[in-house]
């Protein structure tokens, strides 16, 4: 059946051989997901790509079912979501899976991004792979934002108001852009309809970009915890069964945590105010976005100028696009970068602090704290990364992945 990597596979099953001769999908699967040589030293951080993929599929599957029962109209959207919970058989399960699935998709992607940053996965020759990942992240943010609007609760409505109004900060054309986004002079039925259409469309674009992301990944293969390129067969294992099994195990563990929230605290990550139907005349005391946007929301509010805040917020994401060129170090993995390692972990703390700042009203000590945290965020990317690469003395690196694995086993 299967051959070793390098020679084309021979299929004994005649039907498969016939199809493969004309459309080589089986050869492709064989090459990319079976014999594909993969570094043998992944830790569990390398599970999160597979986990994120599972979450994406789960979101689309549950989303399509929800769409068959949802009514995108300002007078009916809220009740139709409640009808899904109450009157659609197992509708509550589909909605809880979808609603919390967004949170867990973001958890998986945030860990995945951290993995990429900590182990320098974005460095040559994987810059485009990284950039495609940031594109996926941006598309996810847009999709999640518009999805949160659909139940048409108070936070849906006012969150949409705050975020779309950001575009009014753009000089000259800002107000026209906002009118165009809304489909009118205030948020209303046209806004809800276009958000629904886009919320259904964007996930399929995400699938397409994920496909490109995977294609780019399979050109040079995965990075690994040492950041050293595999030098021969002793450094790699075939993807299947080694990583299909390890990823499968990781996915199930992740699903356990996800299920705990879905079944025993489905509303713990949401805002109570979104169970109040949208009312354009009553502004909630605190308008907060979903938790996964809080760090960016904090950066937005940390700058005392509206346009400045918008620029800082988008800049916080834009900076990720140029990350491969901001980092001047030739060492990929933080394991061998004694100073950068701590900067990177500090960045994680910084983003969590920003999350808390975003959750609290901008008053008292939260203002200077969010400003300091915003400052560190940009200092990390714009100053520490370029400078550290020049001055940091990396630790001695093992000659190969196999050496690193054997040494670790011995020690």
């Amino acid at each position: 059946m299967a051959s070793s990597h390098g020679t084309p596979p021979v299929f004994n099953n005649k039907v498969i051989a016939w199809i493969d001769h004309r459309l080589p999908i089986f050869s492709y699967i064989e090459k990319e997901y079976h014999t594909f040589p993969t570094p043998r030293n992944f830790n569990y951080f390398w599970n999160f790509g597979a986990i994120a993929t599972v979450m994406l599929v789960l979101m689309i599957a549950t989303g399509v079912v929800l769409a068959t029962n949802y009514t995108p109209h300002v007078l009916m959207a809220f009740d139709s979501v409640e009808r899904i919970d109450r009157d659609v058989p197992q509708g509550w399960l589909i909605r809880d899976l979808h609603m919390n699935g967004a949170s867990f998709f973001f958890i998986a992607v945030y860990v995945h991004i951290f993995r990429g940053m900590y182990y320098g996965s974005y460095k040559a020759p994987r810059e485009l792979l990284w950039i495609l990942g940031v594109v996926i992240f941006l598309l996810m943010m847009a999709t999640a934002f518009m999805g949160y609007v659909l139940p048409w609760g108070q936070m849906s409505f006012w969150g949409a108001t705050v975020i779309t109004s950001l575009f009014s900060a753009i000089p000259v054309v800002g107000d026209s852009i906002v009118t165009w986004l809304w489909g009118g002079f205030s948020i209303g039925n046209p806004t809800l309809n276009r958000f629904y259409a886009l919320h259904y469309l964007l996930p399929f674009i995400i699938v397409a970009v994920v496909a490109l992301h995977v294609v780019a990944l399979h050109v040079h293969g995965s990075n690994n915890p040492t950041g050293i390129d595999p030098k021969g067969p002793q450094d790699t294992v075939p993807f299947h069964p080694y990583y299909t099994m390890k990823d499968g195990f990781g996915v199930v563990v992740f699903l356990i945590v996800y299920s705990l929230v879905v079944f025993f605290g489905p509303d713990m990550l949401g805002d109570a105010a979104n169970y109040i139907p949208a009312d354009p005349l009553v502004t909630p005391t605190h308008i907060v976005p979903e938790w996964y946007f809080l760090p960016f929301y904090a950066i937005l509010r940390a700058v005392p100028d509206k346009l400045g805040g918008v620029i800082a917020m988008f800049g916080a994401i834009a900076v990720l696009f140029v990350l491969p060129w901001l980092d001047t170090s030739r060492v990929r993995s933080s394991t061998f970068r004694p100073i950068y390692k701590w900067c990177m972990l500090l960045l994680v703390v910084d983003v969590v602090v920003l999350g808390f700042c975003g959750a609290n009203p901008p008053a008292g000590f939260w203002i200077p704290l969010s400003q300091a945290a915003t400052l560190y965020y940009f200092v990390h990317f714009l100053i520490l990364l370029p400078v550290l690469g020049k001055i940091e003395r990396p630790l001695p690196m093992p000659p190969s992945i196999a050496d690193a694995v054997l040494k670790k086993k011995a020690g």
Partner: protein
Amino acid sequence: MRRLIVSGAIALAALVTGAGAVAIAAGTEAHPPKRSWHFQGPFGTYDRAAAQRGYQVYAEVCAACHSLSLLAYRNLMELGLTDNQVKGLIKDIVVPDLNDDGQPIERPARLSDSFRKPFPNVAAAAAANNGKAPPDLSVIVKAREGGADYIYALLTGYVPFDKLSPEQVKEFSVKKDDNFNTYFPGHKIAMTPPLADDKVTYADGTKATLGQEASDVTEFLAWASEPWMEDRKRTGVRVILFLLALAGLMYAVKRQVWSNKH
């Protein structure tokens, strides 16, 4: 590697607790005291007797002003009542409809009807209640920070004007006709104290104190907010047990597969 897993877990926990802190931080007024509810915890269920009494409180008191539009009378059967018992409960309720000539009529409520709305529309509800329409109660327990604790605290948290301290009267500019509630944001609430001792007479002989009524109607409203909660928890227990077993198997196979590589 283990250290990395641990730090990853800590980061994840920080994210989740961070989101939890959001919910806590959003409350501005006095925090409602934590009470113990029958429906709490991973195995908690609704107290059927309390919820049935709570329906009585809703029907005899709250329903005069508050709609419960997402529920139908048939849903009451989920509280352990038979269809004949529910028919008995709603025998005096009439709901608006159209007759065969298209003329508006009122007819006796059926099990399939949604709960009768006390006002024909929001404007009428507001006009009859000093300009502020009473909120629908279908998801009220989920729609308030603090949930059931808040609803109970609100129903029992009224302070008569003459019991207020001069500082409170001054700070919140309370007038004699205002309703002061310890737990309502801003303290001045449009709703007059809805419950009092012996406001209802319970058929099961339970003494109808203010606290009992508030606790019962909160149990009922918690059920109304999420009638499928018991199903959710039951399913959850099965799903978690299945996934734990699957994870164990997966781990065993993974170890076996990797045994010649480590």
